[in-house]
């Protein structure tokens, strides 16, 4: 039986035995109470209804932990109801919520002998809410443990083997004379690199990202993905060093630099691939190299001037030159504070 079913059963039975037109269960949310289950003619209309703790009969019972009776339930509920009885959902010293019995306007108030009845139902409801919460908590812990286990497996076995194979391939590549074969092997190693990085990203996701640790890493990766997706230009991304120590103003520069440089390559360079290397050591340096035509229209120059200004602003430099593959190579770097 789910929590919802149990609570539903409680309010239905409570309505019959207490002799009410409506019975509602409400749980606290910030400084309001929210109806989570209801029984009676207009039960659907009450579902999800919010009412304040201050100045309502439900709120008074919730706050004091004692039953309350009244001729009106107070703001949020008194439009359609008159006589009301509210009892707290107690669990030990804690009050989890409140059970409210309502009668339509013009009907007699609840007599004192209804209170123990309502209290019995409130106890059952409190137990149901508590059990459900415990289940959620246990489930979350199980999930976290399971994620940790999967991350550990990926780290301890999958990555290690890919890394080892990649190193061996690289070593092999050096002893190969045929340039075509060598190039293909290099491509294989690049592809393996990508796989390993993706898995490392997954491990990180599984462990939960300690606040903002890779915020910049993700921003840059997203920017590059956005700009190159579906363009036929292959992006090779290398990031090294603790990107989390880059202060916010430099991080904003970094994203602008990556967007401008990669955007230029995609729009104008007729390139097959672009390599973005971001490194954090004594400086934050961003290198963007493509294998395109190396020719750029006038519009690019104003963009580059803006990047040079961003570098100068942070006490750094911008160099643009022809890349070995005949394309453009841009190096933007600024000192860390």
């Amino acid at each position, binding site marked *: 039986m789910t929590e919802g079913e149990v609570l539903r059963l409680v309010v239905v039975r409570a309505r019959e035995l207490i002799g009410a037109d409506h019975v509602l269960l409400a749980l606290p949310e910030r400084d309001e109470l929210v109806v989570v289950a209801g029984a009676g003619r207009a039960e659907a209309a009450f579902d999800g209804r919010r009412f304040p703790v201050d100045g309502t009969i439900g709120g008074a019972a919730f706050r004091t932990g004692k039953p309350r009776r009244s001729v009106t339930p107070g703001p949020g509920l008194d439009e359609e109801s008159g006589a009301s009885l509210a009892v707290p959902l107690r669990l030990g010293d804690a009050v989890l919520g409140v059970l409210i019995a309502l009668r339509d306007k013009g009907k007699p108030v609840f007599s004192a002998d209804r209170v123990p009845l309502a209290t019995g139902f409130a106890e059952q409801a409190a137990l149901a809410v508590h059990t459900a919460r415990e289940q959620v908590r246990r489930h979350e812990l199980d999930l976290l443990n399971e994620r940790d286990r999967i991350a550990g497996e990926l780290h301890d076995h999958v990555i290690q083997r*890919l890394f*080892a*194979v990649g190193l061996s391939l690289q070593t092999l590549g050096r002893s190969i004379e045929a340039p075509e074969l060598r190039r293909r092997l290099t491509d294989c190693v690049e592809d393996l690199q990508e796989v390993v990085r993706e898995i490392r990203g997954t491990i990180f996701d599984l462990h939960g*990202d*300690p606040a903002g640790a890779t915020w910049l890493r993700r921003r840059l990766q997203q920017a590059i993905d956005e700009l190159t997706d579906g363009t036929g230009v292959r992006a090779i991304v290398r990031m090294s060093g603790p990107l989390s120590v880059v202060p916010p103003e430099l991080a904003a520069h970094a994203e602008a630099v990556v967007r401008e440089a990669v955007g230029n390559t995609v729009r104008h360079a007729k390139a097959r691939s672009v390599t973005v290397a971001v490194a954090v050591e004594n400086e934050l340096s961003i290198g963007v190299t493509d294998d395109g035509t190396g020719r750029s229209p006038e519009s690019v120059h104003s963009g580059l001037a803006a990047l040079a200004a961003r570098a100068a602003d942070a006490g750094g430099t911008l160099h643009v030159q022809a890349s070995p593959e005949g394309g453009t190579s841009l190096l933007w770097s600024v000192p860390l504070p």
Partner: protein
Amino acid sequence: MIGVFLVDDHEVVRRGVAHLLEADPELEVVGEAGTAAQAMARIPALRPDVAVLDVRLPDGNGVELCRDLRSRLPGLHCLMLTSFTDEQAMLDAILAGAGGYVIKDIDGVRLVSAVRDVGSGLSLLDNRAAAALMAKLRADVAADGPLAGLSDRERELLGFISDGLTNRQIAARMNLAEKTVKNYVSRLLTKLGMQRRTQAAVLATRLRGQRR
């Protein structure tokens, strides 16, 4: 000639790294081990210039192994090998008193140059990024959030560690037995590790709370 000793519990990794390093005429792999205990037993006799250590070992962790080794062999340079993120890897390397770290992402060129640099006595952690990362950790600890439960002693210890001192040197500074320092360091590592795990757990729970 730089003599290198490899410590990693995966034989495939040791083989891959050995192949790569042996291809460099300047480097020679003088021995290897799959556990911390084997490494402690073999390294002092073989006297390598550089020990390349995996952070996770079946019978301990590379950080503590590195601190033990450097207390016994002050001239030994260590390089941490890990597949964690840069932040975690750098922090581990600083706490280990290592000369640097390399992430296992198949950049063989970087691995070779890191071994050569560390072998010739350079510290790859002597830069602003590492200093900033330590400063951030200290600030996190000093902020005394619910996750920062370090004692004054442990904070002092963290300072000595980030200055690159070995357990033996710290023992002399703090007037403690080396064994006590070792225990302190273990506890500190556990706390910092726990702290990061707790942060992750708290965050994951909060994210799920928002989705509900």
